[in-house]
C-alpha cells in the first residue's frame, strides 16, 4: 500500500514534466510546478515515515515495464524508506524554496520540465529492486540533472561543467552496469532478490565492491572521482544545487550501501581498508579544496566532498566491524554514517538555499564582492549561521552528533584483529578530527566574509532580504537541524530497523536514558545530551545577560570602529576570503596544492597597485585527468590520419585484412 502511494507520487512527478513543457513559458508555470513539487513529495514523505517508524515488513511491486521478460521490480524496505525520507524532505524543501526563488529564473522553460523528472528519478533509484530499473533511474537522474546544469548554458563554464558531469556520470553508470552484470551472472538474474540469493564467490564480491566504489563513488564525489562535482553543483540553479549536493550524493551513498552491504555477499578483510583509506583522503582533501575557494557555491560543493568522506568513514568502519562479526560496533558505525547522511542533507540544502538567496539578492557568487549582508538580510544571515554551526560539527547542533558517534565507533576499533586496520583507523580518526577543525575554519571564512564585515562591492550594499517562501524553507531546515541536534535519540531509534536489516544488529534504544541522553554503549563509557547542553547554554547565557544588564550597566554608544586607531579605513582593508585562508594555505596548501605566492610590483612610474598573486595547482586533475584527456586527444589525432588515405591505401587495408584472415584460416585447426 505504502509503496503504491510512493510510486504514484513518482508517477505524478513524471507526469508533471511534459505538462511543464507545455506551459513552460507562462507566468503561473513556475508557481504551479513548484507548488505541485512541494505537495507530492510531502505525501510520499509521510508514507515513507509511516513505513520506517511503523517498521512494517518490506513491500514489493512489479510493473510490466522496463526489461521485457523481467518487468520493473520495486521494493520498499527500511533502507529504501530512510533514503526516501532524505530524498522527499530535500525535494519538498527545495520546491518550497523555489516557489520564491523560481521567480528570478531567467529561462524557466529550461528548468521546469526537468525539475520534477529529476525528483522522480531520485525516488525511483531508491525504490528500484532490479538492476535494470536501478540503472535506468540512476542514469535518468544524471541526465535530468545534466539538463538542469545546462539550463544557464550561455556561460561557457556551465557548458564545460555539464560536459564533465555527464561524462563522469556515464562512466560511473557503466561501472555499476559492469558490477551488476557480474552479480547477475551469465544467465541474467537481474533482480536484487536473485542476487541476494546467489551468494557470489569472494572474488566476484570483491570486484563488485571495486565497481560499486567507482560507480557510486563517482556520483557521491569520492576523491579522486570528485572532479565533476565542484563544477556541476554550483552551475545549476541554487535549489537544484541544493538537491544535487544534499540529496543526490546521498542517493549515491544508497547505491553503495545497497550493493556492498546487501548484495555483494560477506565482506573480505581488505574491503574496509580500501574504503577507509579513500574516505579519509576524501575528507581532508575536500575541506582543503573548500578552504581555497572564494566562490560561495563552489565552496559548499567541495564541502559536500568532505562530508561524503565522513559518511564513507562510517561505512568503512561498519564494513570492518561486520567482517569480524562485531555486530554491535558495526551497527554503531552504520548508524553514525546514516545519521550523518540525514544531517548533511539538511544543512547542505539549507546552506545552498542561503547561497541562492544571496545570489538573487546581489547577483554575486564571489565572496570577494560580498560582505555585511547580515545588516541587509538578517533572517537569511541567521539561518545561514545555524547551517554553518551545524556543518562545522559544533554542539548543540546535529552535525556534531553524527561526528561524535563516528568518533565513538573509532574508539571501539582497537578490538579489531587486523593489523592493517589497527594502523589505519587511528590515522583516519586523526584525519576526521583535522577535517572537523578545518571545516569550522572554512565556515568562519564563508560566513564572516559573506555576511559580516563591510560591503566589498555595491551589489552587496543594495541587497534586500529574500522572499518569504525561501525563508520558510530555510527556517524549516534550520529547525530540523536544531531538533536533530538536541533530540538525536529519536532519529537514531528510527534507524534501528535499517542497521538490523543490514548488519544484523542495532544500537540500544535511546529513549530509555535519563534526560533523553544519547548513550551509544553504556552511560559509564560515553554519553551526550544535546538537549541538556542546549538548555544549560541558554540558561547561563540569558542569566549572564540578565544579571549584567540589571546589576551593571546596559548603556551603549555607537562610534567609529577603533581598529587600533586607524581612522575610517576603506572596506578594501578588510580581510578577504583569500587572505583569510592564507595562514592555513601556508600550512597545508604548499604541499597539497603546490601553492605559491608572489607579489607583482608595478614598474617604476606606473600607478598600478602592487598585487599579491597566489597560484594553486589541482594536483589530482593534473595527475589523473589531464593526462587522460591528452592521451585520448593524441590517439584521436593519430587515428585521424586514416580519414585522409587514398583509395589505393584503403584497398590495401582491405587486401591486408583478407590476407590476414586467410593466413589465420591456414594456420587454424
Amino acid at each position, binding site marked *: 500500500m505504502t509503496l503504491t502511494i510512493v510510486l504514484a507520487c513518482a508517477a505524478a512527478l513524471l507526469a508533471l514534466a511534459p505538462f511543464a513543457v507545455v506551459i513552460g513559458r507562462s507566468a503561473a508555470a513556475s508557481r504551479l510546478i513548484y507548488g505541485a513539487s512541494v505537495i507530492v513529495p510531502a505525501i510520499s514523505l509521510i508514507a515513507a515515515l509511516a513505513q520506517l517508524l511503523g517498521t512494517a515488513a518490506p513491500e514489493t511491486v512489479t510493473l510490466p515495464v522496463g526489461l521485457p521478460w523481467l518487468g520493473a521490480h520495486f521494493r520498499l524496505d527500511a533502507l529504501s524508506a530512510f533514503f526516501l525520507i532524505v530524498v522527499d524532505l530535500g525535494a519538498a524543501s527545495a520546491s518550497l524554496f523555489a516557489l520564491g526563488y523560481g521567480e528570478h529564473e531567467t529561462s524557466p522553460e529550461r528548468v521546469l520540465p526537468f525539475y520534477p523528472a529529476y525528483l522522480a528519478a531520485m525516488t525511483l533509484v531508491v525504490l528500484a529492486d532490479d538492476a535494470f530499473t536501478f540503472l535506468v533511474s540512476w542514469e535518468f537522474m544524471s541526465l535530468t540533472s545534466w539538463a538542469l546544469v545546462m539550463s544557464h548554458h550561455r556561460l561557457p563554464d556551465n557548458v564545460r561543467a555539464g560536459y564533465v558531469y555527464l561524462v563522469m556520470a556515464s562512466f560511473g553508470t557503466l561501472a555499476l552496469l559492469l558490477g551488476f552484470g557480474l552479480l547477475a551472472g551469465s544467465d541474467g538474474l537481474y533482480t536484487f532478490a536473485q542476487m541476494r540469493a546467489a551468494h557470489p564467490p569472494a572474488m566476484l564480491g570483491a570486484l563488485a565492491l571495486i565497481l560499486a566504489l567507482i560507480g557510486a563513488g563517482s556520483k557521491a564525489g569520492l576523491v579522486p572521482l570528485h572532479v565533476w562535482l565542484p563544477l556541476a553543483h554550483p552551475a545549476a540553479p541554487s535549489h537544484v544545487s541544493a538537491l544535487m549536493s544534499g540529496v543526490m550524493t546521498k542517493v549515491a551513498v544508497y547505491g553503495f550501501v545497497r550493493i556492498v552491504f546487501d548484495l555483494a555477499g560477506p565482506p573480505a578483510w581488505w574491503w574496509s581498508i580500501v574504503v577507509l583509506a579513500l574516505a579519509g583522503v576524501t575528507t581532508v582533501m575536500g575541506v582543503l579544496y573548500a578552504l581555497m575557494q572564494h566562490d560561495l557555491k563552489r565552496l559548499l560543493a567541495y564541502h559536500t566532498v568532505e562530508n561524503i568522506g565522513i559518511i564513507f568513514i562510517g561505512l568503512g568502519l561498519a564494513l570492518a566491524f561486520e567482517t569480524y562479526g562485531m555486530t554491535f560496533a558495526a551497527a554503531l558505525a552504520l548508524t553514525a554514517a546514516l545519521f550523518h547522511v540525514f544531517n548533511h542533507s539538511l544543512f547542505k540544502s539549507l546552506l545552498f538555499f542561503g547561497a541562492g538567496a544571496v545570489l538573487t539578492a546581489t547577483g554575486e557568487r564571489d565572496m570577494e564582492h560580498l560582505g555585511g549582508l547580515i545588516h541587509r538580510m538578517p533572517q537569511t544571515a541567521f539561518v545561514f549561521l545555524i547551517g554553518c554551526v551545524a556543518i562545522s560539527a559544533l554542539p548543540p547542533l546535529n552535525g556534531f552528533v553524527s561526528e561524535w558517534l563516528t568518533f565513538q565507533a573509532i574508539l571501539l576499533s582497537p578490538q579489531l584483529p587486523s593489523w592493517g586496520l589497527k594502523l589505519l583507523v587511528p590515522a583516519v580518526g586523526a584525519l576526521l578530527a583535522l577535517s572537523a577543525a578545518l571545516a569550522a575554519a572554512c565556515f568562519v571564512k564563508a560566513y564572516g566574509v559573506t555576511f559580516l564585515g563591510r560591503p566589498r562591492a555595491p551589489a552587496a550594499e543594495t541587497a534586500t532580504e529574500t522572499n518569504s517562501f525561501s525563508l520558510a524553507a530555510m527556517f524549516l531546515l534550520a529547525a530540523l537541524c536544531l531538533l536533530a541536534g538536541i533530540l538525536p535519540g529519536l532519529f537514531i531509534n528510527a534507524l534501528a530497523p535499517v542497521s538490523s536489516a543490514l548488519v544484523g544488529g542495532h544500537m540500544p534504544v535511546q529513549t530509555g536514558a535519563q534526560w533523553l541522553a544519547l548513550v551509544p554503549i553504556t552511560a559509564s563509557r560515553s554519553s551526550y545530551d544535546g538537549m541538556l547542553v542546549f538548555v544549560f547554554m541558554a540558561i547561563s547565557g540569558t542569566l549572564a545577560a540578565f544579571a549584567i544588564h540589571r546589576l551593571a550597566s546596559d548603556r551603549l554608544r555607537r562610534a567609529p570602529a577603533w581598529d587600533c586607531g586607524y581612522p575610517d579605513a576603506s572596506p578594501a582593508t578588510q580581510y578577504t576570503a583569500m587572505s583569510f585562508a592564507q595562514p592555513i594555505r601556508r600550512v597545508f596548501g604548499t604541499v597539497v596544492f603546490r601553492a605559491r605566492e608572489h607579489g607583482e610590483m608595478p614598474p617604476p612610474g606606473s600607478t598600478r597597485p602592487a598585487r599579491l598573486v597566489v597560484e594553486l595547482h589541482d594536483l589530482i586533475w593534473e595527475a589523473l585527468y589531464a593526462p587522460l584527456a591528452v592521451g585520448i586527444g593524441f590517439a584521436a589525432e593519430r587515428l585521424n590520419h586514416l580519414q585522409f588515405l587514398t*583509395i589505393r591505401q584503403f584497398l590495401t587495408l582491405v587486401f591486408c585484412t583478407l590476407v590476414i584472415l*586467410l593466413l589465420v584460416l591456414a594456420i587454424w585447426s
Partner: protein
Amino acid sequence: MSSIDFDIAHLLAGSLVLVSFMELYQDRLYALLNIYALHALALAASVAWQAFVQDAPHLYVTAGVALVFKAIIIPVALHRIIVRLGVHREIEKVVGVGLTMIVGIGLVALSMVVMLRVTHEADPLAREDLAFALSVVLLGLLMMVTRRNAVSQVVGFMSLENGLVLAATGAKGMPLVVEISIAFSILIAFIVIGIFLFRIRERFDTVDVQALDRFRGERR
C-alpha cells in the same frame, strides 16, 4: 571425367595464373593491356573448355563475352583513353617488381594451402580450379594495391574478376553464371567510362589531379 579433360582444364586454369604473374611483371601500359587481352583469352578458352566438358552450352555465352568484350573491346577502349588523356606510358609502382613477385608467389602458396584443406569428395577439378581462381583473385587485388596508375588498377580489377568467372564456371552447374559474368562486364564498363568522364589521368585517388588535396574528406 577423363584425365585428359582434367589435364587440359588444369592447364588452362594454370595458364591464367601465369598470365597474372606476367601482368604483375609489366611496367609499360600498352604491354600491360596486351597481356590483359591474353589473360581474357586464356579465360575464354578455359570457360569454353568447361562448357565443353560439362556440356553446358550456356557457358559458351560467357566465353563469348570474355572473348569479345574483355579480350577486344576493353583493351581497345583503354588504349584509346591512354592516347586521348595523354596518360604517362610507364607504370608507377608502390613496391618493386621483385618484391611484388615474391608476395604474389606467397599469395599463390597461401591459396593452395587454404584450398587443399578441402576434403576430397569435392571433385579434384573443382579443388584445383578453386585454388587457381583464388590465386588469380588475390593477384588481381595485389595488382590494384601495388600500382598507382588508374589504368593498371582497372586491369588489376578486371583480372580479379576473371578469377571470379573462372571459379564460377568451374562450379559445375551453378546457375546465374552467365548473368553474373555479364553484370560484371557492365560494372567494368562503368569503371572505364568513369575514368574517361572524370578525366582520371593518373590515379583512382581523386577525380581530378589538382583536386588531390583540396577535396578529400574534411580537408576543405
